[in-house]
């Protein structure tokens, strides 16, 4: 696989997006449109203020610097193996900037927080991407012979984007989103977060709003950062259930017995399917004949006819319809049981149980852009960067409260600036000693970044450092 080609590929997302920003036309928005919406959300001037007064350089540096401790794979007891500190660890991290007019600059790197801060303020990037830690500072990559410049480690990342749900979502398409389809992201975060923690044992997981129509996930555990490309692909595939392309009608294939992780996901997703997918307030899968027609196309002919006839009469709720459908499928399944036994396993129709899993998963299971996860040197937009099309900040999402997260309430640069002004007006002179972050909603998000992510991460780093010191002590005192 030509990885170098992959590194430079960044066009697809922007291309599909077109020019439209976030739009909301759903009547079910949890929170109203704030008065700010008509005003400017993004401009070079606003960006300048943001980078000068609000961007959390210190926290970002603390995260990406890992206190100079490289990743090391845990041993059989689950403890990371001892590693040496690397004084220049942060400087080997690739950043890339997209500056005005979509000029893309790769292989940026910074010696420390100060230089990071200076360069961001000097270049005013419209977009900041984060890449891997390399064998040497990326800006020197041309000074060494090919092969000597290699990615060494990188957070395990996931990218989930609403455009990948276009074949099932009925409210919007392309770059547009609303609160109805945002529930796809909520479901994705819930399933992925539990899976990453329980199945893979990861602890340091950061969820971030991508600024427009999706979410990003950064896993910063040692075992995740040290993964090979192949290992990353395997983790992504483990979470891959919806596969297939425009030339395959069936996109989910579940085999029985169902894998424990999928059973757990189903238990989470089925109630959400009933709430967000089939209802009129949601995607309307079972409230609108044109949508249920698509679903009925996946069931045997006689079942389809029975139900189509019955549902035409009206009167039943989407939840009733789902129950009827499941019931009919089970009846049908019992009839077919004898017949199926005579067939080769590959030719057997899906059992009612399988069919049910497949339908729910097709509409709710997370759809990852696996290419982003697979390559160690694939770039991903930085947390706290800004989406130039919406002006919204890529703020962290607390997975424990993901259902309450509303992308439409994420502050834009314009809103943040007005929050500073408002605070200053209300508090007069004494505001000088208050940091700008604390005058705005940024305070909440930076605090959350610390509480849900950084604090735990540093606990782990301290343990690693202590183990290292103890080992050295043991060696030097051992005569």
């Amino acid at each position: 696989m030509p990885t170098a080609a992959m590194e430079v590929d960044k066009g697809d997302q922007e291309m599909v997006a077109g020019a439209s920003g976030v739009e909301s036309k759903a009547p079910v928005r949890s929170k109203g449109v704030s008065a700010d919406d008509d005003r400017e959300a993004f401009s070079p001037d606003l960006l300048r203020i943001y980078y000068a007064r609000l961007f959390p350089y210190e926290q970002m540096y603390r995260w990406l610097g890992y206190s100079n401790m490289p990743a090391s794979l845990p041993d059989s007891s689950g403890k990371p193996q001892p590693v040496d500190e690397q004084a220049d660890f942060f400087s080997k991290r690739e950043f890339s900037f997209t500056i005005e007019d979509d000029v893309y600059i790769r292989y940026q790197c910074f010696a420390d927080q100060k230089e990071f801060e200076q360069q961001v303020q000097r270049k005013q990037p419209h977009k900041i991407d984060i890449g891997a830690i390399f064998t040497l500072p990326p800006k020197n990559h041309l000074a060494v012979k090919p092969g000597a410049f290699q990615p060494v480690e990188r957070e395990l990342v996931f990218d989930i984007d609403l455009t990948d749900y276009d074949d099932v979502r009925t409210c919007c398409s392309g770059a547009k989103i609303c609160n109805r389809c945002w529930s796809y992201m909520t479901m994705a975060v819930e399933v992925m977060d539990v899976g990453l923690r329980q199945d893979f044992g990861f602890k340091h997981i950061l969820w971030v709003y991508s600024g427009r129509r999706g979410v990003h996930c950064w896993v910063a555990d040692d075992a995740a950062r040290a993964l090979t490309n192949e290992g990353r692909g395997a983790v992504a595939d483990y979470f891959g259930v919806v596969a297939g392309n425009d030339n395959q009608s069936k996109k989910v294939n579940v085999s029985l017995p169902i894998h424990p992780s999928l059973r757990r996901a189903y238990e989470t997703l089925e109630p959400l399917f009933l709430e967000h997918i089939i209802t009129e307030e949601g995607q309307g899968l079972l409230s609108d004949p044109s949508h249920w027609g698509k679903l009925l196309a996946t069931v045997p002919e006689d079942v389809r006819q029975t139900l189509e006839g019955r549902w035409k009469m009206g009167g039943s709720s989407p939840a009733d319809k789902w129950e009827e459908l499941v019931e009919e499928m089970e009846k049908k399944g019992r009839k077919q049981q004898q017949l199926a036994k005579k067939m080769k396993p590959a030719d057997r129709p899906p059992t009612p149980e399988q069919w049910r899993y497949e339908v729910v998963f097709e509409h709710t299971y997370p759809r990852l852009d696996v290419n982003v996860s697979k390559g160690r040197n694939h770039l991903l937009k930085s947390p706290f960067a800004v989406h130039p099309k919406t002006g919204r900040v890529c703020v962290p999402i607390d997975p424990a409260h993901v259902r309450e997260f509303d992308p439409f309430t994420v502050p834009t640069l314009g809103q943040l600036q007005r929050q500073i002004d408002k605070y200053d007006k209300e508090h007069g002179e004494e505001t000088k000693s208050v940091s700008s972050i604390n005058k705005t909603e940024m305070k909440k998000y930076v605090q959350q970044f610390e509480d849900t992510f950084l604090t735990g991460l540093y606990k782990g780093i301290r343990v690693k450092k202590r183990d290292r010191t103890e080992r050295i002590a043991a060696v030097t005192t051992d005569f």
Partner: protein
Amino acid sequence: MIGIASMRPSAAALKKDVGGVERHKAISMYNEAPFEEITLDEFELVALDRLQVLRKIEDLKARNVRGDDFRRALRESLHKYMKLSTLNEESASADKRKDTISHFILRLAYCRSEDLRRWFLTQETALFRHRLEELSPAEMSKFIPEHGLFFEVVTPERKAALRSKLLSIPAAPVMEFDRTTYYRIPFWQASDLIGKRQVYLEGGFAYVPVQRVVTIVVARYRMGISKSLMEASNHFAYVTSDSRFGPLLQNMSKQYLGRDFGNGDGTDPDNIKPGMLNSLAERSMPLCMKQLHSALNREHKLKHWGRLQYGLFLKGAGLSVDDAMAFWQAMFTKIMGLDQFQKQYAYNVRHMYGKEGKRTNYTPYSCLKIIMGNPPAAGDHHGCPYRHYDEDHLSSLLSQVRIGATDKDAILRQVKSKNYQLACQRHFEATHKGYEASGVSTDGVGNHPNAWMHASMEFHKEKAAGASGAQSSPAGKAIGRRPGEGGAPSPAAVVPATPSPSPSPAGTGKGGAATRVPAS
């Protein structure tokens, strides 16, 4: 990786079992290169015998032979060329010596280029897997510690507690659950099983039954060999400078690579131009490329993998870098400004031609790569239609490109039995009636999209010219002949450039002909 010393069976372990050697002891992970003298004749012979086996594996895979049929055929080939006897100590050690030496010779011969390394790695891994799969669970549980693979055994109590979960994994050992040893293995060592959800995963550990542990041992093996191949490639020039076995090594790897259409610098005979593409797509492209071309015409964009698959194909067919740039630009700028194209995509085009980044001249994708590679997701048009479309879509696509009912059924039948490449050959046959008589070589059709197009273009050329000429068919090569089914040069035909060596000891100065290959 684990140190060499720890992977070696102890000397004591090698010497026991009078009148029979345990099967698992015959299998090597090749962690240490042999260090002994060997005649040049033997040097060549053992290597060529091993090549026969590796070729057989490639051939079986290309024909999609699986399961028991695969095992039976490979067993036969192994018996003929590379027995691993367990009959008695003496024959076991002779067979093992041959196995080890031949592996290291080929490792050296195939370390030279990326493609050769990949080929060798793929076949050797399959061979190793086959040998492990021949072991019983009991033998396997002995093999593991003997090769320094320290997998933690799950205690019976823990196993019982996890019972229902362990049994809800596809193909779990339901009947033998109580007797099955489970290992607790860090998830990153079980990538294969994790990616396919074929294992229970909890807290970062995969719970792997002994029946499945093969995959993990194979992954380790593969990683080790891959690393040593890279290291060996650094010494290739030095080793092959030896006038006695240098030419032998160079020749050994030459015969088995089909044409890879890797030049693509615009000097290829086909040398196509952008203006020809519409008619070529209509007449001379295999289905996968036809689909990419029409998607590009329709949507004026292709996603990443589509651009690569189609772009490299065009490069392989001789589209020059300037023409390629003009072509992609003309297509993409129908939906975007020139400015955007130049910022976001022009680099990609130059990159494909090795003009940017690490300046690798990428080779066009073969069928195998397309079939096994990244499957297309929503919005993608790359991939192999026979492999990646469902029957309904494929069937209607075939009708769309005007394939008759009989041919269509034949193609769909091949697809059903997962012979995607044969299906593609069938498509060629259906659209090039009379190709047998035309004398056009159809080598590689169904193995490489560029071969498909090349053959088709030749066919049409011949047809246009041959309206007057006689229809003698000089070679009339059978279509779909795969490497190894006759035709390909037999290994014995490899003639070393050096005069036939006398059986004098070759090991002078450079440490013996069985050259040391740096082991990991």
